[in-house]
């Protein structure tokens, strides 16, 4: 490729891959007519340009959901609240106390060693390790949600004050939540395991931005979360939620329910207003994620 060819190609690129029909394109057309290499290069370049055009148009006609900005603003507000609460930072990580961390760590090791030594001397360590093995959180096997599959209490979780300030929930979700009766926070917090799992899930942001969300506290203290997602996003969400819940001590179960089965699922759960929940988000484009959190 000689200097003229390089110049020709640079100029064509500057013109978005198109030689203008006007007189300004005469020199470029002249070079292409006299150079087989550049002629072939331009044919490929033009074909690629035209092939990309539908994708450019598709991109420009695709707009975000109407509530995207509202959801982002809600997350920012939650972030601001969380970051302004000094209790969210463990005391040993706060700047004012962090400099003492090495001393504290050394002291902790010293004390732990002393306690361990005295337990061994008393024969307690042997019996503890023999009688209790720690296993990863069960996904399903130990979780038998008797009341959950029959009927949730019908009382939605109040994430506004009972949980962690609604972190991770969208504006749309909160709207749904505020439409239903609210539980006193003390009642909800009594179900420690499921509450902890739910708090972990909410604060992680793993639930993302569901099209709709509801949480139900069941009679036995377990929780049932119903999250509606676009079909092409639901597997990612299920994976993210599963990964977030895995370290939690309490068992959990996740089901992905096809759009056509959402109505029957709501019926089986004893929830009457599926239509209100779906708000027209129906068809193959949407699927439901049902997350059961055990105690």
């Amino acid at each position: 490729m000689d200097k003229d060819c390089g110049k020709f190609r640079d100029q064509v690129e500057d013109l978005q891959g198109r030689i203008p029909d006007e007189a300004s394109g005469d020199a470029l057309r002249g070079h292409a007519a006299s150079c087989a290499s550049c002629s072939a290069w331009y044919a490929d370049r033009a074909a690629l340009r035209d092939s990309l055009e539908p994708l450019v148009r598709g991109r420009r006609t695709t707009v975000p959901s109407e509530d995207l900005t509202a959801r982002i603003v809600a997350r920012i507000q939650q972030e601001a609240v969380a970051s302004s609460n000094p209790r969210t930072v463990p005391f040993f990580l706060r700047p004012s106390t962090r400099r003492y961390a090495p001393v504290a760590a050394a002291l902790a090791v010293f004390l732990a060693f002393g306690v361990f030594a005295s337990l061994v001397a008393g024969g307690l360590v042997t019996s503890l390790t023999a009688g209790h093995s720690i296993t990863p959180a069960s996904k399903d096997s130990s979780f038998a949600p008797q009341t959950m599959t029959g009927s949730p209490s019908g009382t939605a979780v109040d994430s506004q004050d009972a949980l962690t300030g609604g972190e991770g929930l969208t504006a749309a979700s909160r709207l749904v939540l505020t439409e239903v009766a609210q539980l006193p926070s003390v009642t909800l917090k009594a179900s420690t395991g499921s509450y902890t799992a739910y708090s972990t899930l909410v604060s992680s942001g793993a639930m993302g931005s569901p099209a709709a969300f509801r949480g139900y506290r069941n009679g036995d203290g377990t929780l049932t979360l119903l999250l509606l997602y676009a079909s092409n996003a639901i597997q990612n969400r299920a994976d993210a939620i599963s990964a977030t819940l895995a370290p939690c001590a309490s068992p959990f179960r996740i089901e992905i329910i096809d759009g056509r089965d959402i109505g029957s699922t709501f019926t089986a759960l004893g929830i009457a207003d599926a239509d209100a929940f779906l708000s027209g988000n129906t068809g193959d484009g949407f699927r439901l994620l049902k997350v059961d959190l055990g105690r």
Partner: protein
Amino acid sequence: MLDGRTGPDDAAWVAQAANGDREAFEELVVRYAPKVFGLCFSLLGNHADAEDASQETFLKAFRAIGTYRDQASFSTWLYRITSNTCIDMARQRARRPWVSMDAEIEEEDGGVAFQVADEAPLQDETIAARWSADKVREAIGTLPEGFRTVLLLRDIEGLTYQEVAAVLGIREGTVKSRLARARAALVAILRGMEPLY
């Protein structure tokens, strides 16, 4: 083009946001959310991922706004966060980004379907060779990340060389060379040949 440049109005909002004014930052969200979403959609290829990435981008920007310095325009700074967020997201999900360019459309019955990008014939059909949108999408998905990102920012998003360089933090000459190689590789893939990078 990055038409959301830091204008006089933006500059005031950005300065207030950098000083911890949350409402000023929210104003920037309102102004830039559509552009950020568009960039995410170009880089990730589907609506849901693009919305997730948009949200993540603004959260990161909110956390970092205090460190923003006026060396680059706010839009370039924000788009760099966007680009990095999308690349990280694609890596974490361990699948090739940009395999679809779907668009939600509302049907008469109120349902939502997913419509692929328009594949109607172009008015200018002087070029005989043309590859289908699906084939092009698939081929772009096979490009190495560095080439794919440059090509998407320039040829789909319409950024200038200078803007692509600023967003990716690379030199303009690098943008041009990567772009030329990306296009050549894309044509080779579409012709069923082994691409040379």
